[in-house]
């Protein structure tokens, strides 16, 4: 007997666009665009203005957790069910972004992040560069204590809502038809 010779049949196939030399933030942006998400990178001080531009009325929002980053005035917080139904835009924070997948993690809160990110046609997720992690294991691992200690609920959202049940791919099945991520510089910038 001699050592069995194996041929790696995946040889020659490009193994992902996650080349190690690119940073998680760059990969996050590239991957997000691949899954149909528009990413706008801005300095922290420009976030509010960018949100105002992306905020097609009527709009709803959930309060953002960062000082000096605020929702446009036109975005109604603590909306009524009717306002949720009618809203064109919903703005929420994302607790993290996953570079490998272009996913954002949206955490459910008593002030309605979940319905605000779900009902309107356009979801705008605000994400801080400090919260971009390289891979899914890190993203989930970071939330372990939040699940156990705080009974957290999170949605790993990747691109718009979609279905192929009607014979071909259509976006906007029960959830948003378009997703924008506003990615702003962290403290270090």
């Amino acid at each position, binding site marked *: 007997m001699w050592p069995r010779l194996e041929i790696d049949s995946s040889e020659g196939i490009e193994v992902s666009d996650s080349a190690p030399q690119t940073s998680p933030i760059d990969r996050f942006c590239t991957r997000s665009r691949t899954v149909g998400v528009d990413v706008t990178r801005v300095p922290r001080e420009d976030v509010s203005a960018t949100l105002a531009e992306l905020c097609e009325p009527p709009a709803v929002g959930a309060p953002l957790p960062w000082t000096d980053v605020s929702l446009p005035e036109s975005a109604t917080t*603590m909306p009524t069910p009717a306002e949720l139904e009618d809203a064109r835009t919903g703005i929420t924070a994302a607790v993290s972004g996953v570079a490998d*997948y272009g996913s954002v993690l949206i955490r459910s809160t008593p*002030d309605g992040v979940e319905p605000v990110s779900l009902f309107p046609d356009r979801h705008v997720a605000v994400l801080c560069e400090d919260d971009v992690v390289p891979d899914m294991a890190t993203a989930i691992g970071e939330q*372990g204590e939040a699940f156990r200690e705080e009974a957290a609920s999170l*949605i790993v959202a*990747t691109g718009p809502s979609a*279905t192929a049940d*009607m*014979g071909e791919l259509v976006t906007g099945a029960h959830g948003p038809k378009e997703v924008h991520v506003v990615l702003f510089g962290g403290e270090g910038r």
Partner: protein
Amino acid sequence: MSSESDSRQQKAARIRELMATEGDAVQTNTEGFNRGRYESVSRLGEYEELKTEARAIKEDAIERLPELVEELRETVEARGGHVYLAEDAADANRYVEEVVADRDAERVIKSKSMTSEEIEVNDALEARDVDVVETDLGEWVLQVADEAPSHLVAPAIHKSREGIAELFNEVFEPEEPLSSAQELTMFARDRLGELIADAEVGMTGANFITADSGTMMLVTSEGNARKTAVVPDTHVAVAGVEKIVPSVEDLDPFVELIGRSGTGQDITSYVSMLTPPVESPVVDFDRPDEPIDPDSADDREFHLVLIDNGRMAMRDDPELKETLYCIRCSACANTCANFQHVGGHAFGGETYTGGIATGWEAGVHGQDSAAEFNDLCTGCSRCVDACPVKIDIPWINVAVRDRINRGKDGELDWLVEGLTPDADPGGVDIQKRLFGNFETLAKLGSATAPVSNWMADIGPSRAIMERVFGVDSRRDLPEFQRETLVDWFEKRGGEAASTERARQARAARGDGNGGDLERRVVLYPDLYTNHVLVDRGKAAVRVLEALGVDVHVPPMPSSGRAPLSQGMIATARSKAEAVADAAAPHLLEDRDIVVIEPSDLAMFQGEYERLLPEKTATAIGENSYEILEYVFGLLENGADDGVLSGPAGDTDASVAYHSHCQQRTLGLEAHTVAVLDRLGYRVTTSDAECCGMAGSFGYKREYYDLAVDIGDDLCRQLEAADASQVLTSGTSCTEQVGSLGDDDPIHPIELIAPR
């Protein structure tokens, strides 16, 4: 006898009907998912590692299941939720009915859940005048059409856009008739949006539930599960007990694998990780103008209904236990040639569909439900690589088939007695018994050839074979050769002559190199090579000798593949034992076992682990090689490829190659391609998962049309390559392509043999 024959005809008619009505849509969609899976996992660097991790988590969870159930119960109850452990479907439904009645609910909205299909909770609630609305668009289509799901993940996969438009236009009579997928989706979204707004209870399944935090993971793309969980104030989740995993961190490999394995997406749009009762405010459409109330989350009610329904018994059943690792991704269905062509309405039981359904149906609904479709698994093994938790799905199918065989009364055993000296008890279906004892037929066939071939081919015997044994009369039967490979080898001088030829070949190389290459081989005379496709055996001997290898072709028993594929495990085991006895002296002489027929090699390296003592199985498995894998190894180790036949001229250089399903699962297609490539051939490979013939499958009256449908696709692919030679590795593939296509395929070893 006639009832067996009638039921075969009925089955054939049903399969033909489904192929005609649903086959096209199912094929387009499953093949799309399957292609997506290959592409998506090829982009995932740690695919194999993640599968290993996922498997380990499931093994551990099922091992510790009772303990995890208790941990989960404590976690959920500490959060104010309720946990009910339901013994069976009726028990689960009773509990759900009570919850719905206590909430005075008139409408329950649901997100897609196979477990809720298993317990038929919709029927139970509707009997109590509760309006149940499926919010997954595919499930809703089926609810409107009053049909059952035909696929684990895409329940309406069998319906075309045109069919759905027709249905909606007829049932809902919209002002403007609906036609495009966009229009149909928006119509459904609006309609379902209204129904969701009024619902009092939301019901979901759960893909996974973590014992440490009580977090349930739901994998969706539409967002309906999110609405189902967040809009109403009462959430009921129904899940099999096997969905529990120890911790939140354990979710990672499943998040990364489930979408890729199922629909071929790296990840679906939404992976919800909900820890109910959720913190989100209730969206109360009864008070449309009152702002959402942060405190309303405190009033949320959550009920987790954990369902046993046979699962704890499956856990104690050594053959069915692995089924509990299943994450219901549908990869086994999408990669299955039979499923691609006929769909889950044939390849499925009361609830579940595809290869793994045999395990689920036998476990939760009973063996009879599994028996309805179990034969559609041909053991091609393509699902083994596709399964993200590495379940040996073909084995589960064989094990259940064996049980089904044992459960039947044997009526006509006298007919095959003598012809069928198997070790299995009476009760095995006569058709299975015939095919399971192919060794006896082959021996008799060669001994009496060509008379046996004439006899088999004349009208009356074919009619009897069809009526009694269910051998389709449209199929060409194998043509037995009077001189077997073993006889031929002996006649040309046997072992001693081969030793001399190999020595001469090494001497002619003349450089004194290749000490490593003084290898000795026993070429396994599988039934087909020995009795039917003898030329490929002769070619193998010539190639090996030309490369300086000393060959022996002793008489050896059949591998047991034929009886195993019929679910005759006892017979297969006795064959395996006989092979082990016959192989032992050759292994002691340091001979490698070289195998031409891939399905036999797959036995040696796979099923023998289950049929033989571990050490014996390992000795056979580790020392056996596929013929072209072996040639590849020789060439890589310095053997001279100049003695082999390359293309004669430019026109002869193109070949179209269909590797064998089980050979691919063993990772051995690439070796053949590499050898052909090295010799200068231009190789086009097929991407059909299986040829459709699959041993005896394509001979069977009830499956003939399905097998031909699959084979035709493969032949079209091979013909499109427009190559000067078609190559196939397996016997089944050779017969299928030879009879359905324009070309006469040969084995790659025949192409490269010295001329």
